[in-house]
């Protein structure tokens, strides 16, 4: 039973060793010459501004929630697309009805102003 996990243990130990060697090796033998630019948190392209704990506008929340809900519906479209031929016209009609319902929901969000960024 337990020997099943022996390879796992080996991988775990090897991974830990490699990580530890690289981390502490760099600290021990690497040159240390700090400048203000080097001490800045890395951010691609721009100089970073402000702290990481900045508050985000609540607008992001609404957009994110709408995105999640609409996005997740793709989970039902993928299997249908994979079996498109064998499901035939019945499957096509069903999927049309499903997408029509989604469209109505989208129209509702749009009309209610949930998609407006500037207001």
């Amino acid at each position, binding site marked *: 039973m337990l020997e099943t996990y022996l390879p796992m243990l080996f991988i775990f130990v090897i991974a830990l060793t490699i990580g530890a060697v690289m981390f502490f090796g760099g600290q021990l033998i690497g040159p240390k010459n700090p400048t203000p630019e080097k001490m800045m948190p890395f951010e691609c392209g721009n100089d970073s501004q402000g702290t990481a704990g900045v508050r985000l506008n609540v607008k992001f929340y609404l957009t994110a929630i709408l995105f999640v809900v609409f996005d997740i519906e793709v989970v039902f479209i993928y299997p249908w697309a994979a079996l498109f031929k064998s499901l035939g016209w019945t499957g096509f009609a069903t999927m049309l009805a499903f997408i029509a*319902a989604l469209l*109505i*929901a989208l*129209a*509702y969000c749009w*009309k*209610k102003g949930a998609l407006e960024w500037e207001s």
Partner: protein
Amino acid sequence: MTFDVVYGLSPLLVVALGALLLMLAEAFGKPNPQGLAPTGEVSDAGAGRAGELGMGAAVVLFVGAALSLGVWLAGPDNLVGLELTRPYLIWDRFTVFVCFTLCLGGGLSCLLAGGYLTEHEIDRAEFFPLVLFSTVGAMALAAAGELLTLFVALETMSLGVYALVGLRRTPRSSEAALKYFLLGSFAAALMLFGAALLYGATGRTDLAGIGQAIAAIGQGEGPGAAQVLIALVLVVVGLAFKVSAVPFHMWTPDAYEGAPTPATSYMAVAVKTAAFAVMVRVLLIAFGDERLTSWASGWPPVLATLAVASMTVANLVAGRQSSVKRMLAYSSIAHAGYALVAVVATIRSPAAEGSILFYLLTYTVSTAGAFGALILCGSRGKEAVSYEDLAGIAKRHPAAAMAFSLFLLSLAGVPPTAGFFGKLYVFQAAIDAELYVLTVVGLLNSLVGAYYYLRVIVFMYMREPAPGATLAVPMRSGYVASALVIAAVLVIALGVLPNVTLEWAAIATVGRS
């Protein structure tokens, strides 16, 4: 074939289409300038149109009820095409009867909301699409013959109701929604874990297949049997939460009190009816095995305990409330207890299923009526919530007091109202099933219950309002009044001539093997 399916499912389809159309009508229609709040702060398209949208929603739901009646008369068994929807949706007489009750309860709640939202200037016409979507979920739940359908339908119903509870932008309303949402999702997760274990133990997700597989697992003491027992416990807990049986009722008084009153009415009638329907089907079809329905080794003693606890605790606590709305919440818990007695009786009495359906119908009309009368007794700026608010209302508005009294008498089970026959047939089924102790407990509880219903009537007719207190002035609303008239006619009709409905309820069974 296609015609059979479309005609058979027409109540469900009409309400679903109506919900989508109403959603568009709410968003794209022209706001009514006269109905806008004087501050004009909400410039929403649905603003000031609660009345007309409520009328639309009520019409859709009453059409749904009429179509259920049509399907009933045509006989779901004669519509052979409906076999296609099995095992996902089982469209039998049981389902159609429940659909009628659900549409009726939903329609009455929409009429009440049409008056209530306008009177209290709540610019939330989303109420009506939400009620319709929830009703679609509730109907699918009553019909569900498969675990996946059951779960999706349950969530469709619940998500709409969570939003309905939190519709008002007041601390009480959003607190009620928060509590209901958290506990509701927790209970759904417990039930779902039970469903997953059932799938694991049997390899099936349709209730009939699960029933056969459990019978095959049989008397064994092996891990399979233990897994089925754990699943049974989890599913029963989830369902007990939805019907708000003690000790899974903690959310009920808070959610019912904090929600806008039409939403409370909807929760009390539709959610409970659908939950009882699915409870009966799951227990009798999936857990209908001889061993699991026996008193020694199955669910009957568990449900009997829940029934006794619900009736006793709710009735004792209800009498001590100062808020009538909260009292009605406890009363709905007590009524869940009476219906649970009938659920236990299904193990030995074939008439018990019909008695549950008839009971739920009488409960729906009486409860929707009682909440409607409570809405009618208040107006802008002063809702009637406490006993004091109702003091002496009979002098100020005799019709409202009369209607309220009728519905309370029906809830208390006084003849010749609908509630009397509802209780009578439940207890008759219990006696048939030789559940004498449960019957006696139920009868005693009905007597205790009468106390707090009558107390409201005493306040309305015999007390004077305290000097200097703000008086709750009854509102004037054609919507609320028409809902009350419909409910009152049904309460009296079911009380005076229960026979036809009873015969119908008696043949609406879930068809256990």
